[in-house]
């Protein structure tokens, strides 16, 4: 795949394997995954569980090195590993909020700033600002165990935003939530994306979520993961609300995505 010049992030031919050949534990996880992500885009990666989607996110965000391939950020080629200095440009949202339970909501955001050595009033101001973005301005001094699952995940999102990253990386951010909270948070996330104008890359296994949130949806295959399909979601932002579920375009897209997801599952032949 070609590198697009104006892309914020380009991943070219990313492959990743764990273990090694010598001990016979070689497990290929990613096999030639390429994508170009534009600034301000909301990209969704959809695929069966355990297909290496999370591994791909970790490589993009610099937590893991790739085995081969290259990653470009704003046109600069960083090879297989995004360097540590660039971590500040990413914000991570984890599947189960991953908050520190000994710190308050605001304390968890401050922890991010402290660890990244971002000092000064402007940064401190962002703590309440970001909690306001996720609608938790009244819960600054509340400990995680006093919050509901959805609220905790919103604190997790606020934490990922507090150091003003360019890119949000979300690894099944709603995977641990109940169905109702999940749907509510999906629309809130859409709103947060609109307000903050961040580039977002999200992994999910939920087709509805993918359509409501994504500009483009990539469907990953079973291990070792390849991109099977890239599907643009052409529903305008204004129409992405609770009524969207009954719109014909939504249903059409859902059928299309479901079809492809089913196809990934049937690839798995019984041994």
């Amino acid at each position, binding site marked *: 795949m070609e590198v697009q010049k104006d892309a914020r992030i380009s991943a070219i031919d990313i492959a990743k394997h764990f273990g090694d050949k010598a001990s016979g534990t070689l497990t290929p996880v990613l096999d030639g995954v390429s994508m170009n992500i534009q600034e301000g885009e909301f990209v969704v990666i959809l695929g069966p569980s355990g297909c290496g989607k999370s591994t791909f996110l*970790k490589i993009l*965000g610099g*937590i893991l090195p790739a085995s081969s391939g290259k990653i470009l950020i704003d046109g600069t080629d960083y090879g297989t590993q995004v360097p*540590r200095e660039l*971590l*500040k440009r*990413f*914000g*991570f949202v*984890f*599947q*189960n909020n*991953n908050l*520190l*339970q*000994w710190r308050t909501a605001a304390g968890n955001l401050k*922890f*991010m700033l402290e*660890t*990244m050595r971002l000092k000064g009033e402007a940064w401190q101001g962002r703590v309440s600002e970001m909690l306001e973005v996720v609608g938790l301005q009244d819960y600054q001094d509340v*400990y995680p*165990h006093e919050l509901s699952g959805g609220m905790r995940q919103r604190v997790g999102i606020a934490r990922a935003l507090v150091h003003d990253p360019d890119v949000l990386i979300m690894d099944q951010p709603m995977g641990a939530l109940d169905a109702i909270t999940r749907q509510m948070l999906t629309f809130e996330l859409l709103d947060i994306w609109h307000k903050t104008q961040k580039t977002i890359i999200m992994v999910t296994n939920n087709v509805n979520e993918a359509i409501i949130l994504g500009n483009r949806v990539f469907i990953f295959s079973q291990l070792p993961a390849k991109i099977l399909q890239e599907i643009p979601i052409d529903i305008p932002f204004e129409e992405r609300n609770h009524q969207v579920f009954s719109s014909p375009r939504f249903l059409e897209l859902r059928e299309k995505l479901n079809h492809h997801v089913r196809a990934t599952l049937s690839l798995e032949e019984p041994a």
Partner: protein
Amino acid sequence: MKLSKKTITNILAPLVTFLLLFGFWEWAVSHYQLPKWLLPAPSGIIQSMVVNFNDFWPHILITFETVLIGFLIAVPVGILLATLITSNKIISAALSPFVIFLVTTPLVTLIPIMMLFMGFGQKVRIIGVVIQAFSIVNMNTVTGILNVPIIRHELMQTMGSNKFQSLRHMIYPTAIVDIFTGVRLSAIFATTACISAEYVAGNHGLGSQIIKYSQFLKTTESFACIFYVTIIGLFMYGFVAFLQKKVIYWKI
């Protein structure tokens, strides 16, 4: 202060059991006319605890001191060693077997040999307490640190934190419950270790007195010393429980 029903139950239930047990003991001793050297009545023991307090006091003090100093050395040593063991595979391979060796070897067997080098002083007993108490802190801290979820390490990685920051701000707080399990056990182990050391070494401390009194069939005094040991043990346990409440102020 208004006590909740649960608090009353929690205080009342063990108190009633305690009274029943001691009542039965008291009754059995007088009913079967057991001689004092075989089994003294609780009332006699408590009386001895008060009457002979001046004889016991220096030994109580020295036992308490040995336990406390040993414990206070053992906890940081155990945590530090666990940190080293979990941070490096080679250190882990080099040290782990010896920690297990120290845990499984009964302390009493080591004391006479240690006395050859260091004499009968308090130092030997403190070292005995440290050996017994640090290993249990160490083992539990290792478990705690290894149980830190990968997702937490990834969180620190995304923040670009260094090893020291991770330890202080993430690993220790995450592992604190396991660490405290070790500390609580080590408080108990410290008391046990101290008494075993005193059984073997010298004539200071409650352990040595228990041996001395039972050799002269002064069972009442012997029991009085045992009760004081129990009180020291309970104090240590309570001290750690109090500390745990202060340190872990959040809900797990």
